[in-house]
């Protein structure tokens, strides 16, 4: 999996691409945690359009990002999630607590 980030005026966009399973999920959680600590952004967008596979590890990635952003009173958004990832998120009710774009 590839993880990149871009700082913008409105916040930070973290892009995840490739396959997101257990191993990659742990990497993503650590990466996003560092981004939140480093920039303390008002908004964090997880750009997911490049994901080719995601299991429940993606739920843990989003929940950790959600908790991190809530601690600094920032907002979390998900962008471009493929239909297969949306199915996993819906299964956990993520669509009820995080805004999808």
């Amino acid at each position, binding site marked *: 999996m590839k993880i990149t980030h871009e700082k913008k005026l409105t916040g930070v966009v973290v892009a995840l691409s490739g*396959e997101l*399973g*257990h*191993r990659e*999920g*742990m990497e993503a*959680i650590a990466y996003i945690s560092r981004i939140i600590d480093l920039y303390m952004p008002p908004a964090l967008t997880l750009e997911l359009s490049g994901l080719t*596979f*995601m*299991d*429940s*590890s993606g*739920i*843990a990635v989003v*929940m*950790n990002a959600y908790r991190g952003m809530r601690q600094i009173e920032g907002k979390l958004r998900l962008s471009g999630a493929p*239909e*297969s990832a949306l*199915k*996993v998120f819906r*299964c*956990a009710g993520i669509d009820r607590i995080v805004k999808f774009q």
Partner: protein
Amino acid sequence: MRNAVNQMSLTFPARSVNESFARAAVAAFAAQLDPTIEELNDIKTAVSEGVTNCIVHAYPKEKGTVALSASIDEKGGIEIRIRDKGCGISDVEAARAPMFTTGGAERSGMGFTIMESFMDRCQVRSTPGKGTLVVLYKQITPRLLGRRTP
């Protein structure tokens, strides 16, 4: 599986690097049923959850192995068996509940819920100290243009 028309089996170390190998192997085997992309994704996701459970939970001390097998029946269904010889699950009912995890913040506790939701059947047998067997089944919907015999 009774009346299996094709089958395969694999054994590999319970290492995280093998999770993607396992789901890719089952997806390649299931491809002979001509599943839709969604059906194939469902199978890959369920296998990933089952194998991840073995990798994360089954062997807290010494790493063991995961035995994975898949069978195709004459009705066009696929049965997948994921077995470990690890620590087992003391309370299977609790483990199957949504959001239940003993794996820490990097786990969502949604593994069994996803296996149940994405497959037609999900059975779990576990004995503490001896291991766990997860049996998944999914019927692949016949396409309008027919399907080759597996």
